């Protein structure tokens, strides 16, 4: 217990002095700003030559698409393959009728998870029908299934590789950053040039966004397995493959389950965007309802997406549970009961499916059985909009005036070399020399992209959103890790916040807060918090109970346990949570641009909507990625350095505790 608390105390001292240096630096910046503001600023221009050059690249791809071997022999077959997969699934689903499909999914629930999940799955399917969204929900389900299966088929092996090889992880990390941060809007039109309009292109767009968490979180899981357990297996003469199969995979099971969960969530968050390139389904419904400003209808379709997420999440959740408890300890009688259950379920499913096929049961849910959710939601929305705006507008105005505007002015009106110097200095203080160099290069590239002013406006938004996200995410995540009840309550809310398309809640938000930067921040925080909560919770729960008991026995208070034991020991998860916080906040920059936040987000949207603005949109997207690199290097380095101060001891305490505490 003493080994656990002493290094942490020392680390706190280091951090304090660092905080002081940090404060000093910001003070210096403000003083310099007072003298030099307005000088050497880079004012935005829409006609930068670079933007024209990027337009040229786009046109070249367009002109050579049908002749380039890359397209003819690689990309076209990929598109056709995915198209085939979607068509096959569509045909299969269409053949079994709504009753058959519901039964099959219910049966999967019974066989692989349990009765309660099966009931939930059936209820969700019936709900699609009651919402009059059966066809759309099934179309979305098909696209998501294909995208998720492909993401996992590619992502899990790569994640395992990244978990076992440092070199591969280093190689793949920046690529994953780009995949997750580069706004989909920016590459949607080139993507349709390459893969044409329609479901295959939509699947690939979804894949690009959903693949990174599969790789990242799997790698995290593999790396979280105690080094001593691996060493022990090694010393017993296990081969590398045996170590993987018998030690690393089973021990990383719950984290890999989280990887699957996050892949599904990310995939579902692409449903609306892909509807812009003719992905049929619920996204289409939302786009049409948005055009009509019909909150209730957007909510219906959003709810269906949330239910779909729930179905997929609960059906895959069993993968992350230890199988031993379910099967390993079964006696003969239990095994026999299980066999009867399996046989019975298969029989019932077969009867229903065949029966439904023989009887004239339609493919789609009966249209006259429905529940009107839209009208009450519209009524609630109207009430909120009519009664709360006095308060909300005041909040928005105060926040904008006292927090947002000063930061934005500081960033946009400082001479640009000063901003770069300050950023590099912050990076140096917080994370060391390499981060400082990376930050300076990232910002110099932003200057080169001729989007400095908009980048600084966006950076102000992102910094504030990220700070809010991390504070809220840490608080909720730690609480959820310490209380099962709270975890159970917060989890469905998290899933809903992550999968409910932002526009559903942004419509009333625009009424309450206007088309403003504040509304953009709201969108980013709501979207980014859930993943942070999940990762923090997973990390804190992974801390061995033995260590906590030891700390408690030594007289640590609850707060001391949290801040000196649980959070430091969950460091790796916190780092990934921060990384995902950065990534997800940046992912919402474009959505923020769609509700009044302007700056880079708007530039990306304009690049998508206007043929001639393509170059500007692309440059803005790259700037967003560069801001991501800047923030990521600073925060990740901070974690690494904090750890370095007490690395050896913490790691030893951590790993030995895990080895002892692990079941």
């Amino acid at each position, binding site marked *: 217990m003493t080994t656990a608390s002493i290094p942490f105390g020392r680390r706190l001292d280091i951090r304090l002095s660092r905080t002081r240096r940090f404060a000093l630096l910001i003070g210096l910046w403000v003083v310099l700003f007072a003298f030099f503001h307005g000088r050497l600023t880079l004012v935005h221009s829409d006609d930068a030559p670079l933007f024209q050059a990027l337009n040229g690249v786009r046109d070249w791809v367009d002109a050579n698409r049908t002749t380039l071997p890359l397209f003819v022999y690689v990309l076209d077959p990929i598109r056709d393959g995915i198209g085939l997969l979607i*068509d*096959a699934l*569509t*045909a*299969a689903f*269409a*053949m*079994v009728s709504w009753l*058959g499909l519901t039964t*099959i999914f219910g049966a999967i629930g019974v*066989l*692989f998870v349990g009765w309660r999940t099966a009931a939930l799955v059936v209820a969700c399917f019936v709900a699609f029908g009651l919402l009059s969204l059966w*066809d*759309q929900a099934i179309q979305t389900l098909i696209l998501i299934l294909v995208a998720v299966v492909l993401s996992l088929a590619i992502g899990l092996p790569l994640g395992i590789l990244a978990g076992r090889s440092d070199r591969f992880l280093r190689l793949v990390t920046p690529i994953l950053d780009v995949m997750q941060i580069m706004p989909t809007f920016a590459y*949607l*039109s080139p993507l349709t040039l390459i893969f*044409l*309009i*329609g479901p295959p292109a939509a699947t690939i767009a979804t894949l690009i966004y959903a693949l990174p968490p599969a790789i990242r979180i799997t790698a995290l899981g593999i790396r979280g397995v105690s080094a001593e357990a691996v060493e022990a297996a090694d010393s017993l003469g296990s081969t590398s493959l045996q170590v993987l199969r018998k030690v690393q995979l089973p021990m990383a099971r719950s984290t890999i389950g989280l990887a699957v969960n996050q892949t599904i969530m990310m995939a579902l968050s692409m449903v609306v965007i892909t509807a*812009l390139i*003719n992905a*049929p*389904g619920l996204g289409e419904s939302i*786009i*049409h309802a948005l*055009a*009509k*400003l*019909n909150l209730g209808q957007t909510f219906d379709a959003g709810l269906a997406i949330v239910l779909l997420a729930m179905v997929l999440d609960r059906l895959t959740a069993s993968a992350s549970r230890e199988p*031993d408890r379910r*099967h390993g300890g079964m006696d003969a009688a239990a095994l026999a009961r299980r066999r009867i259950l399996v046989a019975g379920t*298969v029989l019932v499913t*077969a009867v229903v*499916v065949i029966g439904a*096929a*023989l009887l*004239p049961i339609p493919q*789609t849910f009966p*249209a*006259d059985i429905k529940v009107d959710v839209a009208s009450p939601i519209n009524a609630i929305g109207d009430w909120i909009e*009519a009664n709360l705006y006095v308060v909300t507008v005041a909040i*928005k105005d105060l926040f*904008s*005036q006292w927090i947002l505007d000063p930061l934005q002015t500081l960033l946009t009106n400082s001479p640009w070399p000063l901003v770069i110097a300050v950023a590099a200095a912050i990076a140096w203080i917080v994370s060391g020399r390499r981060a400082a160099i990376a930050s300076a290069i990232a910002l110099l590239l932003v200057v080169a992209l001729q989007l400095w002013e908009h980048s600084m406006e966006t950076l102000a938004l992102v910094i504030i959103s990220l700070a809010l996200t991390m504070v809220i995410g840490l608080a909720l995540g730690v609480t959820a890790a310490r209380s099962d009840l709270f975890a159970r309550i917060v989890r469905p809310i998290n899933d809903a916040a992550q999968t409910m398309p932002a*526009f559903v809640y*942004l419509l009333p938000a*625009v*009424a309450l807060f*206007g*088309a*403003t930067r504040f509304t953009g921040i709201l969108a980013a925080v709501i979207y980014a918090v859930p993943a942070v909560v999940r990762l923090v919770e997973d990390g804190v729960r992974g801390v061995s109970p033995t260590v906590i008991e030891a700390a408690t026995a030594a007289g640590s208070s609850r707060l001391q346990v949290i801040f000196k034991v649980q959070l430091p020991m969950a460091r790796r998860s916190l780092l990934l949570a921060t990384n995902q916080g950065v990534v997800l906040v940046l992912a919402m920059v474009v959505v923020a*641009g*769609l*509700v*009044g936040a*302007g700056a880079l987000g*708007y530039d990306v*949207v304009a690049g998508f*909507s206007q*043929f001639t603005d393509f170059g500007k949109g692309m440059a803005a997207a790259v700037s967003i990625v560069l801001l991501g690199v800047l923030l990521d290097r600073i925060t990740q380095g901070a974690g690494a350095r904090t750890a370095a101060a007490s690395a050896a001891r913490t790691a030893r305490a951590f790993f030995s505790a895990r080895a002892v505490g692990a079941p």
Partner: protein
Amino acid sequence: MSLRGNISGRLAVGLAATAIVFSACSSGGASGSPAASTAAVASASSAAGASASGAAPASAAASTAAKSLGPCGTVNIAENAWVGYQADAAVVAYLLQNKLGCTVVKKTIDETISWQGFPTGQVDAILEVWGHKDLYAKYVTMDKTAVDVGPNGAQGVIGWFVPKSFADAHPDILTADKNPAILNTYADQFKTSESGDKGQLLDGDPTFVTEDAGIIAGLGLNYKVVFSGSEAASNKAIKAAIDQNKPILAYYYTPNWFSTKVDLVHIPLPPATPGCDTDPHKITCDYPPYDALYKVVSSKLATNGSPAFDLIKNFKWTNEDQNTVAAYIANDNMTDDQAAQKWLDANPTKWAAWMP
């Protein structure tokens, strides 16, 4: 060991289930071939309530018949995401399906991307284009993969609008065409958290070309352009301002379904004269009347002798027509087919003139 046994057991069960499912499918041949069922899904997706109206089975049957007998075939109509466009597509698709026996596939696609579908054959028609000279130059003039089939008929007006209640209370704001500086006296009232110490001019979806920054500079106005970023956000912000009785100055346009929900007044700026907008950074006049909403079809559709081409070419209506159908869809929650049928029943002479 026991664990592995269980996994293979489950696999076997899964395989068996799949086999049963597929044998069931092939025995239930009544549900049709994969191709037919995908077509049914495609048409169902185009109109959320097609099946609700009971029209889906009938139209599907009609389309299969047309495929083998009729000359029309399949027409892919791009469905852009504003309600006025949806009204165009609803009426045209209804006529194509029910009068000409075509199979219509409406594809929800963003405006700009719709044009990419012409060379690849994925899109046959766009029914309402606002400007987009650059796309026109590429696809119609240069590549010749698309053909201009004339005006849609709706007259577009672009400009700056305020709520009617505001214009009633401050009638002199409507004299901005003679005295643009009058707008500066109201700048304070249009100020928001986003516009600093200037008045806010709310611009919308970047799809619409705006020259507002240039106009503000050209007329010497104390305003800042704030981009809502999307039509939905703009409409919502305008609606909220009216409901909350707050002044708002917004870039806006007609025809627009939303004008059936809110009462807005166009603020005239100095009328367009030759040369007043040559410098995009210093424009001294209002937008010219924007009557160039037009239709484009793929050159494939233009040359293959389909009657669909003639109907789309002849299709032409007015702002009122479009707003009526749009209001059926957006305000009365009708399906596309219901809205189209109601309007077509009431206006038989209009659509008779479009028939080939």
